[in-house]
């Protein structure tokens, strides 16, 4: 299984859970399957074309998927995925 860490602003969609699991083989499938369980998640993370929105990053084991294969980055058992919201302030 893959551990997926959910940031605070998305926890209302995951019933308050900060960590969920996935068995997906890549990031696109992971987002798709999480969205089936937690509707609305995909829309927060991806634009209409399915590309990662500019105000979010996804890391696989501390590595930015923008430096890997983007949304096609493959996943394997034991990987840890972190969904990271943009640094922000007021």
């Amino acid at each position, binding site marked *: 299984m893959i551990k997926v860490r959910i940031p605070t602003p998305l926890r209302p969609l995951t019933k308050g859970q900060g960590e969920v699991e996935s068995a997906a083989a890549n990031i696109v499938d992971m987002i798709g399957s999480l969205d089936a369980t937690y509707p609305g998640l995909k829309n*927060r993370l991806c634009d209409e074309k399915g590309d990662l929105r*500019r105000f979010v990053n996804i890391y696989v084991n501390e590595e*930015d998927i923008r430096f890997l294969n983007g949304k096609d980055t493959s996943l394997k058992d034991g990987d840890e995925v*972190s969904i990271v*919201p943009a*640094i922000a*302030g007021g």
Partner: protein
Amino acid sequence: MPDLSIPQHILDQIVSHARELAPFECCGLLAGVNKTVTHLYRITNIVAVEGAEKLSTFDDDKVAHLERLSPEERAEIAFVMDMQDFSAAKKDIRKNGLDLQVVYHSHPKDPARPSHTDIKIATDYEEIWQRINLPIPAYLLVSLMHSPAADIRTYWITGGAVRPADVHIV
């Protein structure tokens, strides 16, 4: 020994960035080695991009406030870093063997101290830094409220508490 040493020319670049973007907030990163800043990375403020206010860790009041404003007006009271820019900066920081040291942003009309929102988001972000293999940075604020003078102050924000950082200007 100061927490950080920042060259005057880097502070000048932060003020220039803030003035160029005023009345909107600017944001960026400082990196260096051995507690001395050597590099500045400007990051685009994308708070006006649709949905950005929802995925940031703004609290409900701030989101409601932002949603009452036009996209342009949002950038006067908030910033959201473009994570494409952030990723590019992070890559350059690593390539050059530097450490991320400071997250900076401007307050065009407010004092150079962290807002309620700044403190909340920095606190939420504490657990994220280590997960993305970066140290917890200091937070530098530049205020233009008494323009043309610029006031620059730097803080550590941990566990919801703010304390001034000891910065040496070199």
